[in-house]
């Protein structure tokens, strides 16, 4: 039958059109092939999505399992005798007076009382068990509540990062003493503290409220978090109005000619320029020519704004182009001026699309490290920035720096910081979705 069909078609080659019965047969014969192509495409699509989901799940699993312990750390509880004479010699709670005080010695005495170190060498080792932030912690406590003076109160102190790593099992007891970072003596002290029930594993009060620190147990991401918020705010304030204005001008006002075409091509090219190039440009222009200080979120935001501008312009133009021409006709037809058409109709209708593009750009900017290294935001800054002109750093740079440090505990801190960064990102995207829905709901 197929043979006949072929013969038929051959005969029909000379004719211009195939007769309907033959056409039906040909279609019927080819349908199986076409259907299998369809189902193959479907299968490929499903496999691709499945793989993507697997990778994503694996990514989240590994980051969360690694990063989750980073939010916790080991503490030791000590009975502190809040002796005003020794902690606050001048008695006025001033920083000077507290600094002159002897809080560290009080903590050490309390510690020695439990673990009973013998001799100068052992005492020296024992002193290192508690993190060096102990005096700062006591100073803060008495400042918040001067009523503590004269009492004996249980206070929790962070343990040194090596001890922390030992307690987590990263430093093993079985390893020969010469090859591990803590000595048998110190392990003995820790066992003693454990017996007394003095050691606890708790949510870290440094990770979310501390800033960069050389001591891993005291390092936190607050400084970088605030830095990120400040930098992104500057970026948004510059890039959004500028990007939208450019898109509106190119789509609605400019005549389509050679010059606008060249501008268009260049904007599209800029979107593909590696971000580090923008960093070098920022360094050359903002810092070298304009003489702005290094490491400040203002310059960082400006550099990131340059980087996100093309993304915002391109998506805004697409959003403007998607506004139905009938709405423009209606507005022009009733006598609206160009400005009124743009501000009353085009921008409100294009806003959801523009916002999506902006959030994508912002998310990109949030995760950007390279250009910020160029303008010096990689500096080790302990102070939390209060304004856009205070030196600061941002989350991805902080992650980059921590990942580079030798101490074992920074691995957890790095993962914890990544979780915070991802949380920030998800929050931003959620905001974008919310804004979109809200703006689109107006019919």
């Amino acid at each position, binding site marked *: 039958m197929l043979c006949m069909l072929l013969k038929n078609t051959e005969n029909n080659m000379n004719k211009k059109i195939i007769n309907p019965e033959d056409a039906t047969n040909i279609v019927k014969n080819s349908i199986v092939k076409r259907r299998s192509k369809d189902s193959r495409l479907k299968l490929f699509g499903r496999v691709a999505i499945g793989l993507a989901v697997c990778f994503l799940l694996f990514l989240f699993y590994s980051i969360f399992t690694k990063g989750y312990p980073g939010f916790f750390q080991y503490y030791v509880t000590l009975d502190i005798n809040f002796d005003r004479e020794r902690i606050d010699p001048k008695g006025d709670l001033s920083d000077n007076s507290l600094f002159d005080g002897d809080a560290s010695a009080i903590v050490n005495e309390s510690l020695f009382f439990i673990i009973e170190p013998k001799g100068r060498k052992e005492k020296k080792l024992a002193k290192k068990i508690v993190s060096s932030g102990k005096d700062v912690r006591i100073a803060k406590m008495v400042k918040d509540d001067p009523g503590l003076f004269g009492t004996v109160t249980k206070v929790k102190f962070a343990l040194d990062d090596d001890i922390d790593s030992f307690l987590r099992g990263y430093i093993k007891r079985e390893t020969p003493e010469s090859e591990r970072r803590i000595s048998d003596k110190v392990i003995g002290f820790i066992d003693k503290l454990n017996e007394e029930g003095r050691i606890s594993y708790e949510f870290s009060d440094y990770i979310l409220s501390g800033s960069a620190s050389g001591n891993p147990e005291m390092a936190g991401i607050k400084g970088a978090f605030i830095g990120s918020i400040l930098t992104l705010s500057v970026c948004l304030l510059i890039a959004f109005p500028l990007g939208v204005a450019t898109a509106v001008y190119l789509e609605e006002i400019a005549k389509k000619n050679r010059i606008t075409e060249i501008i268009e091509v260049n904007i599209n090219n800029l979107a593909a320029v590696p971000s580090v190039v923008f960093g070098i440009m920022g360094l050359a222009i903002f810092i070298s020519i304009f003489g702005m200080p290094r490491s400040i979120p203002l310059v960082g935001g400006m550099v990131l704004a340059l980087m996100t501008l093309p993304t915002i312009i391109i998506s805004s133009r697409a959003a403007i182009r998607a506004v139905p021409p009938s709405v423009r*006709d209606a*507005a022009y*037809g*009733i006598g*609206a*001026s160009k400005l009124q058409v743009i501000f009353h109709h085009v921008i409100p*209708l294009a806003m959801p699309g523009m916002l999506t593009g902006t959030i994508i750009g912002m998310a990109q900017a949030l995760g950007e490290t390279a250009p910020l290294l160029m303008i010096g935001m990689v500096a080790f800054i302990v102070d939390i920035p209060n304004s856009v002109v205070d030196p600061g750093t941002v989350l991805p740079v902080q992650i980059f720096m921590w990942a580079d440090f030798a101490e074992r505990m920074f691995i957890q801190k790095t993962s914890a910081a990544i979780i915070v960064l991802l949380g920030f990102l998800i929050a931003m995207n959620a905001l974008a979705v919310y804004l979109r829905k809200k703006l689109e709901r107006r019919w």
Partner: protein
Amino acid sequence: MNSKKNDLKSLELTVGDVFSKNARLKARNVNVFYGENKAIDNVTIDIGSREVISFIGPSGCGKSTFLRCFNRMNDTIDSCVIQGEITIDEENIYDKKIDVVPLRARIGMVFQKPNPFPKSIYDNVAYGPRIHGLSENKEHLDNIVEESLKRAGLWQEVSDRLSSPGTGLSGGQQQRLCIARAIAVSPEVILMDEPCSALDPIATAKIEELIHELGNEYSIVIVTHSMQQAARVSKRTAYFHLGKLIEVGKTKEIFTRPKHNQTEAYISGKIG
């Protein structure tokens, strides 16, 4: 003098009486080009005040293009060039001194596809008066909106839901909303570009009735594909073919005794 001569030249092409005694809009020797392409070829016609005139002709004959010349909607198309002269009350609308914004307030337009703004019914009608500053206060604006909706025959249907979206109305209601929006700025002329082509017969009948009523107050130019519609709503009819104005005359005469053989061919269904 020169323009008189040109008039005559144009008359050679056009059959019937292009002039009107109390003309509001006058088009003289209008040519429209889209790039190289000539869309309108030397058209001369008057549009009287309080007159309903329909433009008929086969698809692509340029009737919509010509209609859009009257409120300069073709300005928004970059490649479009217009030659000749169109005057409203003896003022050339293509004069450099003329601002297109007040012109479009004088000459309203209703489009082929109903295109209410994605705003409330109230805001749709109030938009024109607002941007032109036609209302003194909120109360006055309310009155304008109510009056416009009444004239457009929509008030009864929407008076209880003025704040609901205009895009939620039915097609016919949307088109009447667009008409209300156009008359809210008190224009002198209303241009209608196939206003019923997207509507069902019942909605069409309502719009036609409305056009008939509005014809007592405004000059209305309506482009239509339906000859029956032209016959029902207009007093004068102009027949376009391939960018040329072939014949103008009283609607009755055009449909019963066309003078030009092309008109006759179109009316009797031989072309178009």
